């Protein structure tokens, strides 16, 4: 896919949570085509300690409003500065980057698709769910967070499928981790897509492997460029070191050399 270097305008920046903001970016031109699982590289202006761009997943693309949504967790100076961008500010981004999740052909028989997101790893699941729904699927979201306040964008998720939730303190949904959720025992899935903290993804991958379910994970290796030029973001796979930014960030777990 052709990549673009664009100055986008901040249409809105909502602080969903002390540690999360939702950036809505727009442009005078129609935004380039993007697919779920892809990411963008954001240039953060006005942060003296942020030198490189920051990779952020496509959270959602609102075609009607010509908006690209980024769900950002505030963890360091770069993301904290992103939360300060105000409506009308310009944000320079490179996009779209990487490969997306595998979308089943919509004319096939109905599939049971599970989308598992933990923490900020829920970000790409929203757009994935939206696209799956538009292709006629009925995705099931399994979202995990520490408390009820940490599971974000629930109204949006509900538009595109059923939503299952776990929280560590039990304040919303079932208590525990995503891999403890009862749905995993009651339903058999054809494909699982997941993104989140590594221990969570490993647990999900393990579950999938145990049941011989095809499983795609989205990795967040640290990156310098985001488009295949630096070779910094490599993951060890059955094919050797491959760049997460160009060969991923989505990988079928079969390809990875994780200890699962």
């Amino acid at each position, binding site marked *: 896919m052709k990549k673009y270097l664009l100055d986008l305008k901040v249409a809105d920046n909502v602080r969903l949570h002390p540690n999360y903001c939702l950036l809505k970016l727009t442009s005078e031109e129609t935004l380039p085509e993007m697919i779920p699982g892809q990411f963008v590289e954001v240039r953060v202006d006005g942060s003296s300690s942020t*030198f490189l761009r920051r990779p952020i997943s496509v959270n959602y693309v609102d075609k009607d409003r010509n908006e690209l949504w980024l769900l950002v967790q505030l963890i360091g100076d770069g993301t904290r500065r992103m939360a300060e961008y105000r409506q009308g500010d310009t944000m320079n981004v490179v996009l779209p980057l990487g490969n997306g999740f595998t979308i089943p052909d919509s004319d096939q028989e109905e599939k049971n698709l599970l989308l598992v997101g933990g923490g900020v790893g829920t970000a790409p699941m929203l757009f994935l769910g939206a696209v799956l729904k538009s292709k006629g699927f009925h995705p099931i979201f399994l979202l995990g967070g520490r408390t009820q306040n940490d599971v974000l964008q629930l109204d949006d998720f509900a538009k595109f499928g059923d939503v299952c939730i776990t929280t560590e303190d039990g304040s919303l949904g079932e208590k525990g981790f995503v891999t403890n959720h009862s749905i995993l025992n009651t339903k058999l899935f054809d494909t699982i897509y997941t993104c989140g903290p590594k221990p969570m993804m490993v647990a999900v991958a393990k579950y999938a492997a145990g049941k011989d379910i095809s499983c795609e994970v989205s990795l967040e290796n640290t990156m310098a460029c985001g488009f*295949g*030029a630096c070779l910094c973001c490599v993951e060890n796979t059955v094919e050797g070191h491959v760049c997460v930014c160009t060969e991923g960030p989505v990988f079928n777990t079969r390809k990875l050399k994780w200890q699962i």
Partner: protein
Amino acid sequence: MANLNVNIGNLQLKNPVMTASGTFGYGIEFADFVDLTQIGGIFVKGTTIEHREGNPYPRMAETPAGMLNAVGLQNKGADYFANNIYPNIKDIDTHMIVNVSGSTVETYVECAEKIAALDKIPAIELNISCPNVKHGGMAFGVTCAGAAEVVRAVRKVYPKTLIVKLSPNVTDVTEIARAVEAEGADAVSLINTLLGMAIDAEKRKPILSTVTGGLSGPCVKPIALRMVWQTYNAVKIPIIGLGGISNWKDAVEFMLAGSSAIQIGTYNFVDPAISVKTVEGINDYLDKHGFKSVTEIIGALEV
């Protein structure tokens, strides 16, 4: 519009702005962002005779105004390059220059020979300064004898423009520059990365899998500029200056200090269009100051 042509030995560049090895892929990674034909030259990824997997992840750490990398020359080898990559890049209308590395003098020579056979590659850049590999690399670049040995051997088999890339991790870079000049190098490029290190205080572990890595980016610019100027006053062969260049002003500074051409490395990650912007910026500078040719500013620093 000033004349932007410069020469590096027999190599004629349409302009002095090139991109640094390991930071610009094979050029095609940037084709969506810049018109590659507007760049003076492209130094492609570090290439070795054998396929190399490079170092384990993590390979990168951000640092104040820069980054550390420990890629470790991951590449699919000279044969793969010749058969699978060269055909796709050979017709790009700019100079594609291969950055050649090895772990022994013999592997440098073998790799250089392989690349010499490729018609559309007019030059190689001998990397005797990679800090991220156990054998070879920087080990050759930090002594005059080591540098001279590799260059002597490669010069015998490589008839085209031979550029030698120097390490900044030395007490006196001019010594090494003179040594490679004496062995027939057509030009020197400097600097490669400075050996650095990053630590995760919370985990009490190094951030890079290799503990140390190569520092690049704006943070190293003052050091690189100094080394270019010192080298300019020490050798007669042309100098390609690099290290931290992030805009046309930096590029002009490197040329004033004595660079005949420059390379942009890390900043390509920050602004993928910086190379072509730099060409434009240099041109504007020349016009503004009334220079007819960019060659007028090479080494034109008034001290």
